[in-house]
């Protein structure tokens, strides 16, 4: 019997991991993701979850431990936040290149300096080139969903890639929301047991990760690129199954909200989507033709879906909570990918970036009204005045 609980994002993550029957977990404390590990520790200690709970000596070690575990044939889970994510950076390419489909839960946190517990997406976004699947949850329910979906897609033999399952620190990780927990039998139907093609097993000896020549290296890179190209089809299949088994209506890559006759739209991912929805409701009631497009997966980036969805609008505001200093977009990185997706279209909407929520600041309704106002003006004037707006820090327009 499915049951409803009020769970924070961290608690939802732990519930999902338990239902996915993860077998090896490696912990290391750092706010705000630590709550996931504390929940799992309790489950292991009182026998609810049969898993090995290993106390890593640091984040780099966490990733290394689960790499060994997953290579040996166990479903493995770890996680981190902020500088913990970047400390482990050395391991991300070996894991993805070695095609070991383990999962890392990231509860975002702004990177030092200095210590700041607030949420920014920069920690995970810094790792987006390493060959991992990566996506954000808007709510604790989505955290739960994404854990299972990512295991299913990552472990599929057509993909075989590790996964970053991300949630905004505090806004999702610590604020409870309603989560529907399904039956274990439903989860078992959706997620088959972990089966790595060539695990480390003395009965069938293989060697993982030999030294190679440069010409052999290009091949490995191409294979990883091919896996990313093949992943969207697997994601669509998986989400079809998810919807069917759990009675849901998730769209794989983009969720559109009130976009039917919209002229302007927000393009957004993560926690602040919830506030953006409220802003859209209010603006609509005032007659503004505005909608919202929410992104679920940053990797693989759904280029065609983004082009198709955004081409309907006259202006799109890309709301971003991550930094890429010195980049072409004077601050963010989502706008790069959006503009690249739109480049080939004969008719492109105006696009601009809104840097919002950095440092973990609240993004309030009035911030979204401000953004909408800028987009409306851009449509009237036929151009954007700026490529990037740092919301709350711009001089009055």
């Amino acid at each position, binding site marked *: 019997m499915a049951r409803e609980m009020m769970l924070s994002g961290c608690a939802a993550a732990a519930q999902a991991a338990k239902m996915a029957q993860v*077998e*090896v977990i*490696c912990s290391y404390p750092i706010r705000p993701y630590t709550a996931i590990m504390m929940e799992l520790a309790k489950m292991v200690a009182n*026998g609810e979850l*049969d*898993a*090995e709970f*290993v*106390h*890593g*000596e*640091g984040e*780099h*070690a966490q990733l*290394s*431990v*689960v*790499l*060994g*575990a*997953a*290579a*040996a*044939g*166990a479903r*493995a889970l770890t996680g981190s936040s902020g500088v913990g994510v970047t400390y482990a950076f*050395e*391991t991300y390419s*070996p894991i993805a290149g070695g095609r070991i489909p383990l999962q890392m839960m990231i509860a975002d946190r702004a990177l030092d300096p200095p210590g700041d517990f607030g949420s920014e997406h920069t920690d995970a976004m810094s790792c987006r080139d390493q060959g991992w699947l990566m996506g954000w949850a808007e709510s604790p329910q989505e955290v739960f969903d994404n854990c299972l979906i990512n295991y299913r897609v990552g472990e599929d033999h057509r993909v075989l890639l590790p996964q970053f399952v991300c949630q905004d620190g505090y806004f999702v990780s610590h604020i409870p929301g309603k989560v529907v927990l399904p039956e274990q039998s439903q989860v078992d139907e959706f997620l088959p047991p972990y089966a790595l093609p060539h695990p*480390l*097993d*003395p009965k*069938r*000896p*293989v*060697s*993982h*990760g*030999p*030294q*190679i*020549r440069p010409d*052999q290296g290009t091949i490995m890179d191409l294979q990883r690129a091919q896996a990313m190209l093949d992943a969207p089809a697997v994601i669509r299949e998986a989400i079809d199954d998810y919807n069917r088994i759990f009675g849901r209506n998730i769209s794989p890559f983009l969720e559109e909200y009130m976009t039917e006759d919209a002229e302007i739209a927000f393009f957004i991912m993560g926690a602040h989507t919830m506030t953006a929805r409220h802003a859209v409701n209010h603006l609509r009631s005032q007659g503004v033709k505005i909608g919202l497009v929410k992104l679920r997966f940053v990797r693989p980036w759904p280029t065609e879906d983004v082009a198709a969805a955004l081409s309907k609008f006259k202006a799109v505001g890309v709301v971003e909570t991550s930094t890429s200093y010195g980049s072409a977009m004077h601050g963010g990185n989502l706008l790069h990918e959006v503009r690249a997706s739109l480049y080939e279209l004969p008719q492109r909407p105006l696009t601009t970036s809104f840097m919002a929520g950095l440092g973990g600041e609240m993004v309030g309704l009035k911030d979204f009204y401000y953004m909408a106002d800028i987009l409306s003006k851009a449509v009237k004037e036929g151009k954007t005045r700026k490529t990037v707006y740092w919301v709350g820090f711009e001089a009055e327009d």
Partner: protein
Amino acid sequence: MTVAVRTQTLPPIKLIRNVPKEEYYVPGHRTCAGCGPALQYKLVAKAAGPNTIFLGPTGCMYVANASYLCTPYAVPWMHTQITNGGAVASGIEAAYRVLLRKGKREGELPNIIVMAGDGGTADIGLQAMSAMMYRGHDALFICYDNEAYANTGIQTSPTTPYGANTTFTPPGSAIPEGKTLFPKDVPQLVIGGHPAVKYVATASIAYPVDLINKVRKALNVQGPTFLHIHSPCPKGWKFDEAKTVEIARLAIETGMWNMYEWENGEYRYQFKPKKYKPVREYVKLQGRFAHLSEAHIAKLQAFVDAKVRAPGIPVATPVPTPQ
């Protein structure tokens, strides 16, 4: 939660003719002629047998062995970063515990052996090695000590002896002795602070049967164990590759390398000289020490004298230290 208990015990070897015939480290690897670490790898693989998984942190025993999509291992092997041999081994051990418990694998916990160089043990790999010892994983961590970062062209590591010439410690007019620092004592680091560790030993390619037996003893112990194996490097230490075993023996005879086992708090010694030869005899055969003056050699001798007097390793007749 019960843990899979290992019933495997590898028997000790008393005679050379009982050394196992099977090889799990096959030829064709591209190590240098006369490579000390390759020899110890062969002996360790022989000792461990087929129910083994090796971890290869980056180093000579990774790059030279597994070059260009080839592998000399007839048992499962995985590359790790030089930073995390101990951590990856821990993950594999944890996986096997849960997989055996759940019936997804059959048989017993395999031998899990990390083959790390001195850098991957005591320098960049120290954190992961120590954590593996602390957490009590049933696995063996071997440091093959060739006293340098050899694979990258011979650079100093924390086990490089005082006075050695490496490409990061070249002797010159401003720094005549080359390396000015004294090495870490790695087995003592392990013994000193890890309550879960039951067995630590040093070994040398000079005494292959002793090496095999120590590997087997370590693998038979349930819990984390550590072996420090002296593996002279002809290219790095600059000596004739035919003399590798002689150099390894001299290291023991001069006290530069000490052979012992530590088990549950007790020390046992092997090949302890009744009278130590002066370090000069060891030093003069190696090009990496060719630049040392009398004063430097005296400093090295003093270090060795103090080391062999350290708690647990009594000296019968110490070599007098020159004033």
